[in-house]
C-alpha cells in the first residue's frame, strides 16, 4: 500500500497525538460530571472552565460568551434559529449568502417555514459577497445576517469586518452570525473586532475529535436555547458537559496558535506548490482566489474531461485522499451550490476536486499528490463516456 497522504482536512482532521493522550486521561481519570457536588465533579468542572478560558483567550472574548455544542452544525442551528426566534418580535427578515454550509441554509429554510423571509445574496466568480449587497439587503425588520468566514468548497474569504459594519450601519439591532468552522485555527478571528455577535466553530476541523463544537454569543445577545434540560452552560445548552471534547478542542486550538504565523506560511507555501504543479497538467483550472486573500488550506481544482469521483478513487489507490466538491454533500450525486454560484457549468462541477491541507501535511505530500494527478489524468481522459 502506498504512503497515506491525507488531503481532506476540510472534511475532518487527524487528532493531535498529545490531544488524544489528554482525552484518554480525562476519560479514565477525570471522568466526573461537572454538575456533581463531590471532588470528581469539581475536578471535571475545573477542566471544563480551563478549556473555555483557553478558547476565550484565543478569540479575545470572555469565557462566559462561549457555549460548547456537539458540532458546528449545532452551533449554526442554535445561532440562527435560536437567535431569530428570540428576536422574532422585532422582525422576521433574515439575510445570508448562496454559498453557506447546509447547516446554515437548512436553518434558514426551517425559519422560512416558520414565517420568516430570507434574502440569499449572490457571490462573484471568486465566491465573495460584496458588503454593498449586504448593506442593500438589510432592512429595519432584519433580525439576523449570516455570512460564513471561509467557504468550505473553494476557500473564499468574506470581508467580515466591512460586512459587520454594513449590517450595523443599516440596522444596529440585527444580529451578525458567522460560520467560522473552516476559518477557526487558520485565521486569527476576533469576533468583537469584526462586529460579529454569533460565531460557530468545530473541534474536528482543528485536530480535536468529532463531537465537540463551539458557539460564541456576544454580551446582551439573546438566544432561544435549542437543547433543553438540566440547565448546564447557563441554560443555553443543556446536556451533560462533554468535558473531554471541550478540553481536547482547547488543547488542539492552543497548539495551533503556538506557531500560528509560521504554520500559516507553511500552509500557503504548500498551497502555492500544489497549484503550480497541478496547473502544469493541460486544461486544469483552479477555482477562486489563490493568494493571501484566500484560505491558506483549501484549493478547488477543476479537471475537465475526468469525472471527479473517478479521479478521487484512482488517487485513493495511490494513497491520496481528497474530496469531490464538498464532502458533506458528496454522499449522493448532488450539484454543489457553491460551485454553481461561482458560475461553473454542470460539467465543471462534476469534475471538481477539493484539496484541503493541515499543519500535519508536508510539501512532499502535495508534490506527490500533484504528481499522481499528472500521472492519472491523461490515462483517465482516454476513457470517457461518448
Amino acid at each position: 500500500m502506498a504512503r497515506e497522504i491525507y488531503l481532506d482536512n476540510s472534511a475532518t482532521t487527524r487528532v493531535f497525538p498529545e490531544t488524544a493522550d489528554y482525552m484518554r486521561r480525562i476519560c479514565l481519570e477525570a471522568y466526573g460530571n461537572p454538575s456533581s457536588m463531590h471532588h470528581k465533579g469539581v475536578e471535571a468542572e475545573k477542566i471544563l472552565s480551563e478549556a473555555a478560558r483557553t478558547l476565550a483567550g484565543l478569540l479575545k472574548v470572555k469565557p462566559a460568551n462561549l457555549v460548547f455544542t456537539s458540532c458546528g452544525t449545532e452551533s449554526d442551528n442554535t445561532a440562527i434559529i435560536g437567535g431569530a426566534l428570540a428576536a422574532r418580535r422585532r422582525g422576521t427578515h433574515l439575510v445570508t449568502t448562496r454559498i453557506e454550509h447546509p447547516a446554515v441554509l437548512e436553518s434558514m429554510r426551517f425559519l422560512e417555514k416558520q414565517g420568516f423571509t430570507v434574502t440569499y445574496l449572490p457571490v462573484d466568480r471568486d465566491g465573495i459577497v460584496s458588503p454593498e449587497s449586504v448593506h442593500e439587503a438589510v432592512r429595519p425588520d432584519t433580525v439576523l445576517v449570516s455570512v460564513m468566514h471561509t467557504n468550505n468548497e473553494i476557500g473564499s474569504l468574506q470581508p467580515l469586518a466591512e460586512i459587520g459594519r454594513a449590517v450595523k450601519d443599516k440596522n444596529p439591532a440585527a444580529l451578525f452570525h458567522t460560520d467560522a468552522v473552516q476559518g477557526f485555527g487558520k485565521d486569527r478571528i476576533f469576533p468583537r473586532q469584526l462586529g460579529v455577535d454569533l460565531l460557530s466553530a468545530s473541534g474536528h476541523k482543528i485536530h480535536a475529535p468529532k463531537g465537540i463544537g463551539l458557539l460564541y454569543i456576544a454580551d446582551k445577545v439573546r438566544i432561544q436555547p435549542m437543547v433543553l434540560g438540566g440547565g448546564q452552560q447557563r441554560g443555553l445548552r443543556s446536556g451533560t458537559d462533554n468535558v473531554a471534547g471541550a478540553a481536547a478542542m482547547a488543547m488542539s486550538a492552543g497548539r495551533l496558535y503556538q506557531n500560528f504565523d509560521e504554520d500559516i506560511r507553511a500552509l500557503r507555501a504548500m498551497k502555492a506548490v500544489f497549484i503550480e504543479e497541478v496547473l502544469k497538467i493541460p486544461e486544469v483550472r483552479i477555482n477562486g482566489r489563490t493568494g493571501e486573500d484566500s484560505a491558506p488550506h483549501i484549493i478547488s481544482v477543476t479537471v475537465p474531461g475526468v469525472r471527479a469521483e473517478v479521479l478521487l478513487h484512482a488517487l485513493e489507490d495511490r494513497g491520496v485522499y481528497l474530496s469531490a466538491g464538498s464532502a458533506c454533500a458528496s454522499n449522493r450525486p448532488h450539484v454543489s451550490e457553491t460551485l454553481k454560484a461561482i458560475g461553473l457549468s454542470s460539467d465543471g462541477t462534476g469534475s471538481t476536486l477539493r484539496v484541503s491541507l493541515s499543519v500535519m501535511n508536508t510539501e512532499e505530500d502535495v508534490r506527490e499528490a500533484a504528481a499522481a494527478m499528472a500521472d492519472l489524468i491523461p490515462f483517465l481522459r482516454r476513457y470517457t463516456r461518448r
Partner: protein
Amino acid sequence: MKYQSFLIKYAEIGIKGKNRHVFEEALVHQIRIALRTCGGRFAVNRTYGRMFVDCLSEYDFEEVTEKLSCVFGIWGICPVRAIDIMPIGELREAVTAFMAEEYPSGDHTFKVKTRRLNKEYPLESLEVNAELGNAVLTAMPRFTVDVHEPEIMMHVEIREKIYLYSHEIPGPGGLPCGVGGKTMLLLSGGIDSPVAGYMVAKRGVRLDAVYFNAPPYTSERALQKVKDLAARVARYTGPICLHNINFTPIQLYIYEKCPHDELTIIMRRYMMRIAEILAKKNDCLGLVTGESIGQVASQTLTALGVTNEVCTLPVFRPLIGFDKEEIVQVSKKIGTFETSILPYEDCCTIFVAKHPVTKPRAEVIRAHEKNLSEKIGDMVAEAISTDEIILIGADSEKILKRREDEA
C-alpha cells in the same frame, strides 16, 4: 409463555412422494439453523405428520416468528398454546379464554375444528366441536358461527396434550434451502438481481454470487452496497459466497477496441463467460440473472439471445416476465429495495453509450470481439484468478480469499 409451540405448515413438501423425508429433513435442518440465532431453547419435532417447534424456555416471539418466516419451505407458522389433557368442562373455559385473548374485539365469525388423535379422550371430535362452539358463543355473544367460510378457524388437537391454535403467520413458501443444488447469481447493485437470486433460492437452490467491480470507476461503497444486498438475501438462503471480480481492465480494453454502441452487450457477454467459468469451478448448475424482457437496451429479446449464446450452462431469468413495479414489490418484501436505490454507480452505467444497439446481430458482435483476441484470454484468466471471495451471512462477513492483484 403465551405460546408453547409453533406448528409449521409446509404445503408442497407434503406431496413429494418417496423423497418426502429428504425434504422434511432439510426443512428441519433449516429451521434449526434459523433458531440458532434466537435467544432461548427449542426442539424441532415431527409427529403425526406434523412439524412443531417446541419452545423449551422463554423466548422473544417477534424474533422467532421473524426468523421462521425467512425459512424457505414454510408455508405458515401457527403459534400454539399447549395445555394438559382436561375434562370438557375445563376445556370450555380454556378455549374461551384463548379466543378472548386472541380476538379481544370478538367481532368475528368462527368455527371449531377438532382432531382427536388420542382416542382415550371421552368425547368424539364432533362432540368437542359442539361443546366448544357453544362455550365461546355463551361467554362472548358477539362471535357468530359460520361453518362454511369462517374468519377464524379455531383448531383443537387432542394428543398427549391439547393444542390450541387459530392464526397463521405466512412463511415464504418454496422448498427448503439446498435440496435443489447450487447456482451462480450475477449480482449488481440494482433492484433486479437480488430479487432474481431470491426467486431461484426459494425453490430450494443455494446461491453463489459474482460481482463485477470496476475501480476506480466504482467506489468502495458500491461494493459495500452489494455486500449489504447479499446479506439481506442470505437471511433466506443462508451464507452466500460472493466473488468480487476486478472487471476494469476488460472494460477498458473493450472500450478501446470495439464500437461504442456495442460496448454494453460485449461487456455482458464477458460477464457471462466469467460467471460460467466460476460456476463450473464451484459446482453450480446454472447462472441466474435479473434480466426482464425489454427493460433496457441490453435486455431486448435479440440482445438476450446474443448474450445467451456464450454460455453452455442454463441461464435462469426468474424475472423475465415481471414488470419493474412487480420486481420492486418483491424487493420491498425481502428488504433489498432501500439498499438497491442507494446512488452508487455500478460498472454497467459508467461507459454506457447514449444510444446503445437494441438489435445486435450475433455475427457482427462475434466479428467485433475478434478485435479483442490478442489480450482478452489472458485478461479473463487474470480476472478470475485474482478474485476476492467473501462469505456473506445475514449478519456476518468473512474473507475467504484476498485479492491477489493488491500489492
